[in-house]
């Protein structure tokens, strides 16, 4: 049906104006990925360019957000509250195809779907997200994730649900081990919000339990604020081991629930959450867009992949330091990427004076939220954070600030998911 409609439009254009070139037919914007980057790109394109034909390819019919997944682990949200469908996206006039994009031909400007179909495009927005690097931690593969959940790529929500069930089944006094990867990875404050949210559950339900956070890094996002909160809310419950104190996990024994460090220390835990090293999703790697580190380098104005102009790569799959791999950055940059793609397709210049906006809220306890803000711009060699702006919440005993930020975090979540998936 979708194919027929697409063909119908093309045929009508051919009959009505046989002498006019492809440039006069509706511009075809193809979006791969229906998450924070892709769904935002599709919405912005429909809102701002009603004459552009927008097609979104996403394998899943239901999208589970990474943000607020940690509240599911805390038991204060249910999975269905962070799960969204694509009906409103369709109602907005986006053609949504639930299939896996399995290959890109940048010369023919065509995307191959796992179902066998090939879709032509004038401009491609690629927002495929991340892949977990199975085997980067010895013994940690897809089968091991069935025992030691990562809960870092939500998929159908099964991983988050599994980790929650394991926490519920754990006896009071158990140790929850969390392995945290080196930079860069999706959602820099995410592991530490997760530590906090698991601690909030344990404090209520299993107060003799402990969290052992084994980190490949020596420092992390909003560190002072997180550690202040841990000391205040969960004293004695959380041990964070940095990389320079042998925190880096290099091997797991999934059956025995053993996390082994670089220098051979073996931590046997009751529940293990292993967040492995990551890369751009497979389609970006297979299309030859990624660098040796596994991420896609992009132009800071247009988000075109340096390896393939005409393919605009947004979201966690690109490498854009100092911007974080966050849902808000994916959302914010999607608009500049779409506007640039359409301008370039029409022979015009991309929007000038671009700025990209991020706020990452983290919940660390009941009515206790913290944030980091960043405003970024294209620079001569990549992205630059705007001086004397942004930054983290103030430290200190500020209960009103913490309570308000928790409330505002909820408003952020509602606003951004409404933009992507709401009517």
């Amino acid at each position, binding site marked *: 049906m979708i194919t027929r409609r697409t063909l119908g439009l093309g045929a009508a254009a051919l009959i009505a104006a046989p002498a006019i070139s492809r440039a006069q037919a509706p511009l075809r914007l193809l979006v791969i990925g229906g998450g924070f980057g892709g769904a935002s790109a599709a919405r912005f394109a429909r809102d701002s360019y009603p004459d552009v034909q927008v097609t979104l390819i996403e394998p899943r019919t239901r999208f589970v957000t990474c943000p607020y997944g940690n509240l599911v682990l805390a038991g204060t949200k249910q999975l269905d509250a962070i799960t969204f469908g694509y009906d409103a996206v369709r109602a907005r006039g986006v053609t949504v195809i639930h299939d896996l994009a399995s290959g890109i031909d940048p010369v023919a400007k065509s995307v191959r779907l796992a179902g066998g179909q090939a879709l032509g495009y004038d401009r491609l927005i690629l927002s495929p997200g991340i892949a977990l690097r199975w085997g980067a931690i010895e013994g940690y593969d897809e089968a091991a994730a069935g025992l030691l959940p990562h809960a870092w790529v939500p998929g159908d929500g099964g991983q988050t649900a599994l980790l929650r069930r394991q926490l519920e089944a754990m006896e009071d006094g158990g140790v929850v081990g969390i392995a945290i990867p080196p930079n860069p990875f999706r959602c820099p404050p995410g592991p530490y919000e997760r530590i906090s949210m698991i601690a909030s559950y344990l404090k209520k339900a299993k107060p003799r339990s402990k969290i052992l956070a084994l980190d490949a890094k020596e420092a992390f996002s909003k560190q002072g604020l997180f550690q202040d909160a841990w000391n205040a809310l969960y004293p004695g419950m959380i041990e964070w081991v940095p990389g320079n104190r042998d925190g880096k996990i290099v091997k797991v024994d999934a059956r025995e629930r053993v996390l082994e460090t670089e220098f051979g220390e073996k931590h046997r835990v009751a529940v293990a959450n292993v967040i492995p090293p990551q890369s751009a999703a497979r389609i970006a790697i297979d299309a030859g867009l990624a660098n040796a580190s596994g991420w896609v380098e992009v132009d800071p104005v247009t988000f075109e992949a340096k390896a393939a102009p005409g393919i605009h790569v947004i979201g966690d799959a690109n490498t854009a330091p100092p911007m974080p791999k966050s849902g*808000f950055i994916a959302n914010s940059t999607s*608009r500049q990427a779409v506007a640039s793609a359409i301008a370039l397709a029409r022979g*015009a210049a991309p929007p000038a004076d671009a*700025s990209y*906006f991020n706020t990452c809220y983290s919940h660390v306890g009941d009515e206790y939220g913290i944030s980091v803000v960043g405003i970024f711009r294209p620079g001569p060699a990549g992205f630059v954070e705007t001086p004397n702006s942004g930054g983290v919440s103030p430290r200190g005993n500020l209960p009103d600030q913490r309570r308000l930020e928790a409330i505002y975090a909820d408003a952020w979540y509602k*606003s951004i998911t409404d933009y992507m998936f709401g009517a």
Partner: protein
Amino acid sequence: MLPAVVIAALMVSLPALAQGPDRPLAALSCGGCHGVGSAGQGPIAPLAGRPKAELVAAMTAFRRDERPGTIMGRIARGYTDAEIDAIAADLAARR
């Protein structure tokens, strides 16, 4: 009668002029917390349709820490006067 080249140029340029985003993209970032279209979200204030001068004054005060807030000071310091002016004009024009 217009020369063919002018007609061709009009055919190409007219749609391009009419079809771009007609607003500063930075203004759309506000909606990330202030609700779709910055129409407000729960306890977060609506911005759309407010007088431009009020929005500029608020951002200026946030930037100088003269108005209490949780994160708006950190945000306001990331934009120039000209950018705040353009964002405020855009939001004021929306209902």
